[in-house]
């Protein structure tokens, strides 16, 4: 459709003989422009202004080892090198290798999260406060991307419900909306993302209050690297990865189901719930299997599990719901 339009675009105008030479130059000029633009896109660092340097992950001591610690989890943790260089963080570029290259200048200090909406005690939490609301716990979760690859990550944080209880949601709070940081100057590739920014996500209140839902401040025993959502992000292990918003700046408790970024982009492909489900395919690809990253080159794809294998903890929340309709 699009190509048809472009193929027929100009040639009625350039065919006359007087413009014949112009056409040649035009073609060469376009090729040159194409080259210049591509070069610029490959090296955005060449033009972005030098600013204060971003945060560097620091070691976190005295992490609590609970039911999701390495002694209790029978999964091989994906190498940090793989996880930290294969990211979907469209504000820093849409190629998997882009965020680790482009996010290193991202300034994440000072940082705070504003918590508002249907709550009795709205307030702003500074990053220092967030790090001290509860003991930081190491939790090894499977993380399944909607693109059919998966990783196993030792996240650090505590249940989101800890923070939620402090602000005391009112009875009319039915959903929680999350908003990620967005600033064009710090995220110069935002225009290529093709999604509406700032990034917004949402959960039903009971999903948000489920103990598995993690307010995450670190991974691999350190604070979060920028490309993985520093300094604080969500991790919802039974949902596709895009539900776990990064670099959170605002949390709103709301009455109605909030808009979510990928659902806005393509509602037939990305539902509000987006629970990991091998039986409900993405319209463009199967969700039955996944490629576990960091394994051997000839590893077979492994079967994807309903709710990413966390059915015991979360399936009851969806009892009686048609998971094909509410995908």
């Amino acid at each position: 459709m699009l190509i048809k339009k472009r193929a027929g675009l100009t040639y009625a105008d350039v065919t006359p003989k007087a413009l014949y030479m112009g056409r040649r130059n035009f073609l060469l000029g376009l090729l040159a422009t194409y080259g210049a633009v591509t070069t610029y896109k490959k090296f955005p660092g060449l033009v972005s202004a030098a600013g204060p340097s971003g945060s560097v992950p620091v070691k976190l001591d005295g992490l609590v080892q609970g039911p999701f610690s390495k002694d209790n989890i029978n999964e091989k943790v994906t190498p940090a090198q793989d996880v930290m260089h294969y990211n979907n963080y469209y504000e820093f570029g849409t190629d998997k290798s882009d965020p680790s290259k482009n996010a290193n200048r991202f300034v994440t200090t000072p940082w705070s999260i504003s918590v508002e909406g249907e709550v009795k005690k709205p307030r702003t939490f500074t990053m220092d406060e967030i790090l001290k609301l509860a003991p930081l716990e190491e939790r090894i979760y499977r993380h399944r991307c909607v693109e059919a690859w998966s990783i196993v990550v030792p996240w650090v944080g505590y249940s989101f419900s800890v923070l939620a209880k402090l602000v005391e949601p009112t009875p009319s709070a039915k959903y929680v909306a999350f908003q990620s940081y967005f600033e064009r100057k710090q995220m110069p590739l935002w225009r290529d993302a093709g999604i509406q920014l700032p990034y917004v996500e949402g959960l039903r209140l009971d999903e948000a209050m489920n103990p598995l839902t993690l307010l995450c401040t670190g991974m691999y025993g350190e604070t979060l690297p920028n490309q993985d959502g520093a300094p604080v992000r969500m991790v919802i292990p039974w949902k596709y990865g895009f539900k776990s918003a990064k670099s959170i700046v605002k949390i709103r408790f709301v009455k109605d189901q909030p808009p979510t970024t990928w659902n806005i982009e393509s509602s037939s492909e990305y539902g509000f719930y987006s629970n990991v489900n091998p039986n409900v395919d993405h319209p463009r690809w199967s969700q039955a299997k996944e490629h576990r990253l960091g394994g051997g080159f000839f590893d077979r794809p492994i079967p994807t599990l309903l709710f990413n294998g966390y059915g015991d903890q979360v399936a009851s929340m969806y009892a009686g719901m048609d998971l094909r309709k509410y995908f």
Partner: protein
Amino acid sequence: MIKTILTSTWTKAVVFALCLLPLAILIGRGFHGGLGANPIEFITHTTGDWTLRFLVLTLAITPLRKILHQPQLIRFRRMLGLFAFFYVCLHFSTWIGLDKFFDWTEMWKDVEKRRFITVGFAGFTLLIPLAITSTAGWIRRLGGKRWQLLHRLVYLTAILGVIHYYWLVKSDVTKPIEYAWVFGILLAWRAGDWLYTRWKRPAPRTVRNAPPPSAETA
């Protein structure tokens, strides 16, 4: 000078070696852990990208030889086209062998159900007869006119290739759109050239009676 370079056998050998460079780099990366966290995806995307690039190069030959008045460039067209086919074969076999692990039922379901796979598969299939009939013998057997007509299928493959890419990406359509522009320009040039030729020499009979093109000029 340029003509000497273009007609030299050595140049052909050098271009041939250059065309193998993307594969060599890929293999080199494979041995040094340079394929990233998702090597299968990396190989699939790289070979897919090079298929489109070789299609661009193949389709650029005719405009370039006319614009630059270098008819000898035609010597490279078949080779570039066959390299496009070579990289699409790598692309396709990566999907079969590494991505899907020879799960034929699932693959056929994908071809039927997933429109980006359907068009990609169609584009690949259309290249097969072109690769087979790329020899001088086949040009003779088919006759230059029919051979040329058949090989216009490559325009369709280029379009299907871009659609395949466009439907694959989640939201950032920058690169597929770039390819769409390049192919659009290359195809529009042909349309323009065709119209211009007709306008300049409105005598279709002379064209019809033209001798069939040889392997070098087809």
